[in-house]
């Protein structure tokens, strides 16, 4: 067994494979299938201060090698999370990372402050890239000043490792990455979904209640890989790569491009066991290629 431990901005993980936020619920749905102690970390479903109903049905459309979603951060709010969900998950033998959302900087900060108190939350992922909410969300992630400001303020409220999740819907993602790094992010994760749309040609209506939604799955992998490669060249903090990862080979590609860890999102819908298969596959790859540690292939692309 090769050494799969990675350190993401102070967060020690037993292996570099996490589930992506919004694709693995609060972890309990996964325990119906397997023992989550095999995962590097679970990214919890996006949280907001108050209850959010999310967007209207339909929220999903299948696309070539991918899907669009328009969930819109449905969750019962942080109080409910702390009283009902956190007690159920806090003893899971797996790092838990909260995904923090807001419509204003104040909301982001307040939510961070609350979650920062929770002992069993290992890190905070600041989501400035949700394309499915009217206010906040992606608006922060596509502008350097906004991305910088929210990171700066949240940083003050956050003593845990702070990961900022970037939007791919930008002209130059390295600009945003540099700004959040300079404002104190301990790591960046990328990419969130690409803004897309689907239409029912027969009915002449949009397939999503919100018209546009977020594109995820294998279709976006080439874009995600490119952005991870670009960003990892310009920042010193660790990069967490995601976007269309379906198997160990995909994950290895992200490590080679410069990711220090990966997240698995849409693939979970196809098979919740995929993250475990990926852990095994990475181990197998490292052994086959005679690497003792995952750290030896991070950024290992030969040009």
């Amino acid at each position, binding site marked *: 067994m090769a050494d799969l431990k990675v350190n993401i901005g102070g967060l020690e993980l037993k292996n570099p494979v996490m589930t992506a936020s919004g694709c693995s619920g609060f972890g309990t749905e996964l325990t119906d*299938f397997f023992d989550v102690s095999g995962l590097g970390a679970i990214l919890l479903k996006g949280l907001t201060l108050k209850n959010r109903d999310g967007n209207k*049905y339909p929220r999903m459309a299948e696309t070539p090698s991918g899907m669009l979603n328009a969930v819109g951060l449905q969750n019962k709010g942080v109080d409910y999370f702390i009283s009902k969900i956190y007690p159920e998950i806090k003893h899971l033998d797996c790092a838990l990372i909260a995904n923090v959302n807001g419509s204003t900087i104040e909301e982001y900060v307040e939510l961070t402050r609350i979650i920062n108190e929770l002992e069993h939350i290992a890190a905070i992922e600041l989501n400035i890239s949700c394309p499915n909410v009217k206010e906040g969300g992606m608006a922060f992630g596509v502008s350097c000043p906004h991305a910088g400001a929210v990171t700066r303020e949240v940083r003050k409220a956050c003593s845990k490792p702070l990961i900022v999740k970037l939007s791919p819907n930008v002209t130059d993602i390295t600009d945003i990455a540099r700004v959040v790094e300079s404002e104190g992010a301990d790591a960046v994760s990328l990419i969130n979904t690409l803004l897309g749309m689907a239409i029912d040609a027969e009915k002449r209506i949009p397939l999503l209640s919100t018209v546009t939604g977020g594109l995820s799955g294998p279709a976006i992998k080439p874009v995600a890989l490119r952005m991870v490669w670009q960003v990892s060249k310009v920042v010193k903090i660790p990069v967490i790569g995601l976007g269309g990862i379906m198997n160990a080979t995909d994950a290895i590609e992200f490590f080679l491009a410069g990711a220090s860890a990966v997240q698995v999102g849409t693939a979970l819908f196809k098979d*919740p066991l995929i993250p475990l298969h990926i852990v095994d596959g990475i181990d197998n790859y490292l052994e086959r290629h005679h690497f003792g540690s995952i750290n030896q292939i991070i950024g290992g692309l030969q040009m």
Partner: protein
Amino acid sequence: MSKKAVTELTVLENLPCGRNQSMLVLQGEHDLLPVKPGQFVNVEIPDNKEVFLRRPFSVFRVDEERRLLTLLVKDLGKGSHSLMQVGTGRKLNIIYPLGNGFTFPVTGDRPLAVGGGSGVAPLLFLASLAASAGIKMDVLLGARSAADHIPVNTVAEDIRCFFTTEDGSLGASGLVTDHQVMKQLDSYNRIYTCGPLPMMKAVAALAKTKSVTCEVSLENLMACGFGVCLCCIEPTVEGNQCVCTQGPVFNVNDLLWQI
């Protein structure tokens, strides 16, 4: 042991079963997990390059001893069409058991099931297990024409089954809601319905006027099928609920349907 599994079952039979419909008999290598009527499986669609996600199908029949799990697949589009072509011997990857299932009737209940379209499977599964438990359940199935119904001999003998067809070619003429049994709802204390939304709403409306408990099984679009994506939601008195975990079966009173 895990409560849910991702597993491969072998296609033992794939038989035509009424127009544009197949009965897919799947066999497990190991013992199956327990499945209740109204629960479903999420099937990985093989071969079709245009299908990315799995497709959910209600369980039609289970034979624990022979490790058989049977589905009724109606040709409604890309995924279902591909499944209908799958050859015997082929392995299908499924996730199961999913969803809550129907409230099982208790002795003394006089249950009625009303179904149509792709909603026939879970109702007949329920009726047949009820019969085994000594509870007689009436089943009313509607379709456009005789050819669209599952063959009558597919329905277990211990189930009293009524048919309606829009063209009168089998059973009573008209929609299920026009059928005699729907005029005698007082003789039932539970109604289960699954099928096209307009049908379910019409049935639920009649049940409401007679104050008969009514459970509906929804077929909202799903991405994951096990509660993590929040794509399949239905508005309820408790807020948006996941059809895949908190359903697919709901008491109609919990839904915000305008009926």
